[in-house]
């Protein structure tokens, strides 16, 4: 126990200074360990981050000098009807996709936690959507979501259930967001399921056996054993999913680029359009940084959860 070892170190009579012993002090050892990665992250993340904050306070066109304008960029966002659409879209996209991944991921993990043939092969195959480069898999989805080639439309039309061409998955503003969410779930589900599966396997079978003896049903066991024990894993994976989904870029940029009529425009794509295509770095930074408050809440939750252990 560190708590025991540490006081022992300090209460001892102070011997001649020893580097080895100094390095053993909890604070020194810890900082020697976390120092290099912190410096690394500070340089490659901290610097750009603060630079981004500074940018958002400037009127800074591409390839030109910037001018300090205070919060004008944020005020401009506030009055931009497209911006509010972006806010709503991003939340819908993140919340719906995350819930779907969570529910189906847990379900799939429970299914895979059973014993069956070709278990490893199945698990590896299910990871495929996560492995393939997103830009390329999204291009395949472009065909799958094209009404003229989509299997769904093809099946429905062949069965004479609907008239061709059938639903327009990306062209209908009401369906487009749903289609993107499905592609996002397709890509994110495997990692969810596999990580949750790993969590499931840490639960001792003894617990279930004991519960069975006490007469607990499947649901009771799930509710009172599985869920509580899985909470930490579910929490971490969900946080990650939220962060990645919230800032998703590639998938939307390839499939719709925010169309039709901005109905799938999210923070990352809008910021990119404004900063890159519009050449307005300051405003782009402001849009990107408005993601922060929403994310920060979740980060705060995470920081609390991940605070150093109190042995």
């Amino acid at each position, binding site marked *: 126990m560190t708590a025991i070892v540490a006081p022992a170190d300090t209460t001892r009579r102070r011997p001649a200074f020893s580097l080895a012993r100094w390095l053993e002090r909890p604070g020194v050892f810890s900082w020697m360990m976390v120092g290099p990665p912190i410096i690394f992250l500070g340089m490659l993340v901290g610097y750009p981050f603060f630079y981004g904050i500074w940018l958002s306070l400037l*009127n800074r066109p591409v390839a030109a000098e910037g001018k300090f304008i205070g919060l004008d960029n944020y005020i401009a966002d506030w009055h931009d009807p*497209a911006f509010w659409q972006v806010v709503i879209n991003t939340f819908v996209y993140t919340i719906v996709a995350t819930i779907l991944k969570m529910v189906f991921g847990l379900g799939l993990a429970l299914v895979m936690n059973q014993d069956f043939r070709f278990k490893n092969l199945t698990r590896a195959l299910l990871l495929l959507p996560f492995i393939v480069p997103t830009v390329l898999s999204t291009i395949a989805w472009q065909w799958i979501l094209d009404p003229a080639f989509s299997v769904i439309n093809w099946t429905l039309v062949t069965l004479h259930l609907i008239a061709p061409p059938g639903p327009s998955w990306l*062209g209908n503003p009401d369906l487009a967001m749903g289609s993107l969410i499905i592609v996002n779930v397709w890509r994110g589900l495997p990692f969810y399921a596999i990580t949750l599966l790993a969590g499931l396997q840490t639960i001792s079978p003894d617990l279930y056996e004991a519960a069975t003896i006490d007469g607990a049903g499947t649901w009771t066991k799930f509710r009172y054993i599985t869920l509580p024990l899985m909470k930490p894993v579910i929490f971490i994976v969900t946080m990650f999913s939220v962060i990645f989904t919230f800032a998703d870029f590639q998938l939307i940029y390839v499939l719709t680029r925010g*169309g*039709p*009529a901005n109905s799938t425009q999210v923070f990352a794509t809008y910021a990119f359009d404004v900063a890159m295509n*519009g050449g*307005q770095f300051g405003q782009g930074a402001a849009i990107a940084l408005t993601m922060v408050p929403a994310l920060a809440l979740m980060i705060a939750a995470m920081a609390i959860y991940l605070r150093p252990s109190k042995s």
Partner: protein
Amino acid sequence: MAGVSRQSRRDLLKVGALGAAASLAGPSIVRAAPKAMTMMHESSFIPPYDAFFKNKLAVAYEKATGIKINYEVVSVGSLLTRVTTTAENGSGPDMSTVGFNWAYLFDEKLIDVSDIAAEIGKEGGGWYDNAQEAVVVNGKWKAIPYANIGQLMNWRTDWFKEAGYEKFPDTWDELLEAGIKLKKNGHPFGFELGHGFGDNHGWLYPLLWSYGGREVEADGKTIVIDSDETARAIDYCRRLYKETMVEDCLGWTDVSNNKAFLSEQISCTNNAESILWLAKKDFPEMAKVIDQSQNPTGPKGRFHFLNVQAHAIFSHTPDKQAAKDFLRWLMKPENLGPWYDVAVTYYQPFLHKYDDAPMWNVDKRNIPYRDAVASAHLPGWPAPLSRAQVEVIAKFVVIDMFAQACAGKSTKDAIAEAKQKLTAIYKA
């Protein structure tokens, strides 16, 4: 092709002359001459076009001057990102293709090439006036426009004939009429209304203009989007979408209409020459029944979309003169001509000298692309280029105004929202 060998021979002579001139021009050039320069280009739709630069032009130039020209290819969608990082950091390629309004966007990081532009213009029979819309910033040429990639009507002659049309409809109203008939026959239209980079602007801005609508007056300040003309263009667009097109168009990007046309889903779209080109390669039967025509005319005339491709020199280039010399050399008829020829009119010259170039005779169906150059404008026309204008395009303000109306919003509300966005952008 007989012309090539003749030209390449001439080419050699010219190169020789240039090399001599360079060495005569004084020690400054010789001493400072860089070993290599890099030209960045979008990955051309026509692969031999890129190959010609790499294997012929760059090689010839290196032989003549000792300067190696690297040719760096980037996909169309990524070119702007690369140009931005290059200009921002002052490092990277020495020269690049710039399109659209980029000459304005990167103005301060590009060098003035007015002098060679004048020479090239004189040598090439004069520039098309509208080329300057895209490359002249504050009276200075910031890039040398080498081509327009026109956006025109691509249509199926067989299906139009079936519906009783031998020729492409001349007015937007006739187009609507034709489209209704064709859709009834199972051959709808498909025009991009989504967030692509070209095929949406390619017809929506010309449509707006030909009804007399515009975003901003020529003064670049007065917002005039809220007009009866705009309303009429929107009403027309909504009818065209609902009565002639496939529903999917609203979500399309630039690849979508090529795919739809080649898979015979649609009978007409607005696109560059890439559809016919690919059809000739992979679908020879279909290629026989494809034709290309200028955009229809409206109450206020006929318009097209200016899709300028121009070469610009970054100001971080160590030897600006060497880069200018190269562009000057590249634009000489004996080098530029054969380069255009490989791409057979996919790239339409902005120099009048090429108005009757032999490449136009290869396929007369391409001629409308030449005739459309003069009536082409940049989005935002007639206002001059401005930061605000660039932002309007990046935010798809005008595209989404049409798209919203097609998706069910009232004309009044669609215009009101566009006006609100324009006001905010122009005020900033």
